């Protein structure tokens, strides 16, 4: 077997022990920015959750720094791992599911329609 060369150091398992704890203090995620993201995603975090989420952000952003060491000059983004061609089908009506089948999981129905709070006064 040949020599082992590793020029990118991968942190051993022991360093991951303090995954959340270490990065809570180092979080750069400010509260205002997090609240804006919560609003955009229709998610309301509890106060007890916010610290953990901020730590998640800090860790993910710290990991992202690794990518700065990769030479991506002139490299195109790879959205798909393989060539994708949307398959087409014949332009004809396919009644695959009945209304009852599609609405069987509805949280609340109003006749044949899904019930939602009033949005127009």
């Amino acid at each position, binding site marked *: *077997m*040949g*020599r*082992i*060369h*590793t020029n*990118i150091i*991968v942190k*051993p*398992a022991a360093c*991951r*022990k303090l*995954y*959340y704890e270490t990065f809570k203090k180092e979080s750069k995620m400010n509260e205002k920015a*997090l609240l804006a*993201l*919560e609003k*955009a*995603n*229709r*998610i*309301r975090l509890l106060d007890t*959750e916010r610290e*953990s*989420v901020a730590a*998640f*952000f800090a*860790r*993910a952003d710290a*990991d*992202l*720094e*690794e*990518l700065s*060491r*990769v030479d*991506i000059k002139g*490299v*195109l*983004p*790879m*959205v*798909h*791992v*393989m060539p994708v061609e*949307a*398959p087409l*089908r014949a332009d004809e009506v396919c009644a*695959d*599911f009945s209304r009852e089948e*599609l*609405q*069987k*999981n*509805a*949280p609340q129905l109003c006749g044949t329609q*899904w019930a*939602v*709070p009033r*949005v127009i006064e």
Partner: protein
Amino acid sequence: MRRVMLEDMILTKDMPSAAGSRMLAGYVSPFDATVVEKLRESGFEIAGKLPVGEFGIDLVGETCYVGDSAYAAANVLKTDTVMGVIALDVNGAPRRVAAQKGLVCLKPTYGTVSRYGTVAVASSADTVGVLARSAADCGTLFATIATPDARGTTMQARKPVEGRVQRVASLALATDAAVAAKMDAAKGKMCANGIEICEVEAGVIATARACWNTLLCAELSANLSRFDGIKYGHRSASFATLEQLYTESRSEGLGLLVKSAILYGSDVLYGKNYEKKYQKALRVRRVIAEAFRTLFAKYDAVLLPASSKLQYTETDHPFAENLYTAPASLTGLPAVVAGGVQLIGPAFSEERLLAVATLLEEVRR
């Protein structure tokens, strides 16, 4: 024995599919996934559904809303009542379970098994895979489900790679002593069977985790925006306006790990971060795919661990641990786990990888 179980990310008409989330608790799909249809057409009985971690992104199934669901697939395979478990490999959980519990797991090439009827999380990477006690069982189930499907919008025509594995590149990635011992045992087994092992530097492949976490969160935030409490899924009882319905339903229905990933993914896609983080990660993805192409010009497979340890603790995190499973997820390449180690091969080399897995599955904990 032609009975299988399905992980809860795969939709069935006759059984609820919750994808491990309170958001979909009690949800019953109006249609079967393609893999379910293929299995039944081939004479397999679907014995039931298994709980998974919420939307498949955790370590080994520990974040399912129903409670203690870690290693659910391994626990059922130990009972010898089913041939295998069909799982959706989103963030590598099936592979980690197989590595730690002495099972065989095949994550096929992206696009060889239809994703129609699976819960979409990271659509450019989600792959239906197989967990079983042996490589032979994995192979049988894979052959059953890896068939063309007109409803699968990201299907690829399979061109199986022929021949056998003769040269393997072993990537140097850090693990604990127990996993390192498994790697050594696997290398010994392969060498004894005439396979040449060469140690190679991980190089850019070691950045796969950071790249994958960025893309996983971005795609997950987009895919999970469909869960709004309107047409299906959990709807909160505490709302007065439509906005509150959305917010309360999603806040109550989704777990903390998923919420963290959604928020981070949304941040990655927003404003200047789109180019700075998301597009950069997509470019690095191409560089990593190219690195694998270069390796496969000289080697038939790449050997690396599937997990850093044999038993996780509550301080371990799936977005750190996926260092080992991210390369195959990111590039869509097939991966097989056997004997506690992972082999990644070129596209469509599943049969070749399973042949090596047959040697390795004798190496058990």
